[in-house]
């Protein structure tokens, strides 16, 4: 039957309902497991094949050589489109998509994220070999640690 106010049932129901609006940032957002946030690079496994650099649609990745078999990766997160192709392309899975997404900033410079691997010391004597492995196990330092 045609009538004005055909949506009345919804209106009456809504009067007694809690608003659906999520008051972000007061309430946290729930992220699905596939969510593609800020890409994270782990220099330990990187073999420097540069497939990520070649495939990146936004040209936001640069892989540079720090020393023999040691690489640094720079993400221009202001250009990044968060498609996750780099994570898919990487044959060693050294790039992963994290769940970090609160990256708004006033300054684009803070979005340039460089992570460099630490090269092993050049002098390798019997008793110093241990130190070398220790050094290598130190966590890689981001040029911009957590600070976005």
């Amino acid at each position, binding site marked *: 039957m045609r009538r004005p106010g055909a949506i009345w049932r919804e209106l009456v129901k*809504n009067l007694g309902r809690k608003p*659906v609006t999520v008051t972000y940032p007061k309430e946290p957002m729930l992220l699905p497991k596939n969510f593609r946030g800020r890409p994270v690079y782990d220099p330990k496994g990187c073999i420097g094949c540069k497939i990520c650099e070649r495939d990146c*649609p936004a040209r936001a990745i640069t892989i540079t050589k720090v020393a023999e078999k040691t690489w640094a990766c720079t993400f221009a997160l202001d250009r990044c489109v968060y498609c996750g192709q780099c994570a*898919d392309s990487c044959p060693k899975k050294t790039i992963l998509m994290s769940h970090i997404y609160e990256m708004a900033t006033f300054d684009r410079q803070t979005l340039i994220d460089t992570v460099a691997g630490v090269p092993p010391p050049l002098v390798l004597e019997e008793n110093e070999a241990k130190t070398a492995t220790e050094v290598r196990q130190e966590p890689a330092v981001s040029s911009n640690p957590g600070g976005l």
Partner: protein
Amino acid sequence: MSERMILPIGPQHPLLKEPIHFKFTIEGELIVEAEIRMGYNHRGIEKAAEERTYLQDLYLTERICGICSHVHATNFAQATEEIMGLQIPPRAAYLRVVVGELERIHSHLLWLGVAGHEVGYDTLFMVSWRDREIAQDLLEIITGNRVNYGMNTLGGVRKDLDAEQIDQTRKGLQELAERTLYYGNVVSNETTFIARVANVGVLPKEVAYSSGAVGPTARGSGLDYDVRKHLPYAAYGEIPFEVVTSPRGDVLGRALVRVGELLESVKIIRYCLDHLPDGPIAVKAPRKVPVGEAVSRYEAPRGECIHYVRSNGSDKPSRVKVRAPTMGNLASIRHCLLNQQVADIPIILAAIDPCFSCTDRTVMLVKEGTREAEVMGWEELRLRSIARRPI
């Protein structure tokens, strides 16, 4: 009143959420002439696509449109796969359909809300957008993102569905189906809504045919053309579904077609989930594409979307042509608008579900004489805003 006034609408106007310019000549409340001017949203995508590899273009084309991003990505992937001679695995074809139909649901619910808003029916707008969130959440669960899903890759899809996700999708579909039925009921019974859409913006079948209308605009005028049925792609050849048409030809007809398609989409997704084939979700695609050309068609929520890709044998395409469905429907809109009232402009424009940023995409605009555009920093902007204040 015989005095003619020019009523400009756009590029900035509350009626249009996207920049396009219409110039209406009106007599009192009656439209006697309509002119269209586009190009405010050119991003140079077709030209940019020629400078990127096929894989990069996949993400580039995905960003042609925010609402039908899966449409363009699938379309481009299909064309490229055809040139490569790749056959995607059946599971990938079904997953493409699932995401595509979820996208159709969210797009049509969005349209329903916009149509409500254009005729001042804001409650319909709010509640249908609320329920559109269900579809968007499902898309986020499956692909990881609410828009620009990144579901496609050359040779298949990137994300698989697990049992839990299938379960969540079924639950969401149940609710969507109920809500859609309710809205269909409201839309066809609400007097004020019917008064605004029935016999408004009439597009006769012949005009729809000759002006190249596609999608719900054409089907709302009784033209039976649906790419999913007539030129099936992905897994549509195996899925049973109906093509919804309406002989009315007015805005109400287009609304009813869309509501009908919402219900069909729910059915299609359920069928896909029930009959999901096992197997891999992607095959490996070569980096270099052989010489060739292909046309790929896809039934976007707004109508037939077409990509033409031409390869010269390198890893970059030599020409990518994109025709978004709105471009096909724009030609028919002039006929719909003439001799209608000013008050009906919003709903008639909204009835083709226009998406102007998909339509505009070809060149980058440079003002004559300026060789370098300024990029203003935050500090500079702030300083300028302070300096502009009257003292």
